[in-house]
């Protein structure tokens, strides 16, 4: 029997604002690492979710099936002292901010923009809203 799937992220329970950053180019592991480290020091960030194009660990079809993929961008990066296995060529960030009020939120937003401007060479688009779930739903409790 399959074990229940844990919620993929830690839900706040309330719809905190999220900053969506979609980059114009897919970022290398090195840039992702630098950007995350720049974001890591900004207070009030509750969590950062990332997405992008998946990089398989092994060749998953064809005559080379099962061989190591050896993709240079699929590696372990170090963010704030934690090792994170990067499995994507990252192209979007969702930054959840737990600020006390709008004024503080705006300060954090400017800090995020400054970090992005410094590290994302080819530009990005940024929006504030709510893009992911903030409380568990039925999906989180299904058995398979």
């Amino acid at each position, binding site marked *: 029997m399959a074990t229940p799937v844990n919620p993929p992220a830690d839900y706040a329970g309330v719809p905190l604002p999220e900053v969506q950053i979609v*980059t*114009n*180019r*897919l*970022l*290398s592991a090195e*840039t992702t690492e630098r950007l995350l480290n720049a974001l890591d020091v900004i207070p009030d960030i509750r969590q950062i979710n990332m997405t992008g*194009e*998946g*990089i*398989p660990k092994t*060749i*998953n*079809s*064809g*005559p*080379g099936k099962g*061989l190591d*993929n*050896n*993709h*240079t*961008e699929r590696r372990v990066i170090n963010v704030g002292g934690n090792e994170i296995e990067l499995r994507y*060529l990252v*192209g979007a960030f969702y930054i959840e901010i737990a600020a006390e009020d709008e004024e503080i939120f705006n300060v954090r937003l400017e800090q995020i923009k400054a970090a992005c401007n410094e590290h994302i*060479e*080819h530009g990005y688009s940024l929006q504030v809203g709510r893009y992911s779930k903030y409380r568990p739903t039925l999906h989180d409790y299904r058995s398979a």
Partner: protein
Amino acid sequence: MAYKRQFYPGNSIPAKNRRRYLDPKVKLKNLRDVAQDDVVRIMGHRNPGEDYKSIHPPIEEGKEPECPIRKLVTPIEGAKHGDRVRYIQFTDSVYFAPISPYQRAWMYLSRYRGVDTGTLSGRQIIEVRERDLEVMAKEMIDNETFDPALTGIRGATVHGHACRLDENGLMFDGWQRYIWDDEKKEVVYVKDQVAIPLDRKISVGAPGDMKDLRERTTIFRADGVDMRDDEEVTKYGIRIHYLRTLGGFQPWKVKGE
């Protein structure tokens, strides 16, 4: 009245390029020279220098059945020797790649004999007798329809044509068959088209710059040349759509349209 072959309507840059690529009388420019053996290595069907495997004896040796069509058609070299049918598959990025899969199909069928080709959303496969394929593959890699960054040689797992480019301007490839050589500013193949590692790196040259690629592309894009800005192309599209619809709906009315 003698029929004069037409290729594609329109006066915009992509329309003109489509005409050029399709017209077999136009000799395409060669932008690079990848060694024939390296093309064979990238395709991965045989080792360079190895004999061609055959699936039937040479036509001249065998007893061909009596057939008027066989007498009419001159076999291509590979068919004469009884070669296997092998393939090469290209993926073309939506970001102003020099050509896109559907025009590849038109181009292949317009320029080459003895080919079988298939179009998919982001890739175009071509199947030919092996020794002819190798010659064609070299032409296709060397000429202006190929760009090292925006065209991929991918036999399987072609995902990437509609993805954003990476920081070096290369089309995304989950299997990373080619990498960016930052010293030489060139694109280098490290795996063959089905991602089996190559013995040595094969350079396919430097990518074209975006300004040049916009001049070379056959792709209509809202942020490049919009198809609707080319009046003749739009009319042609509408006419085909109209005739197809009418043909399905009231085919007797198509006469004279």
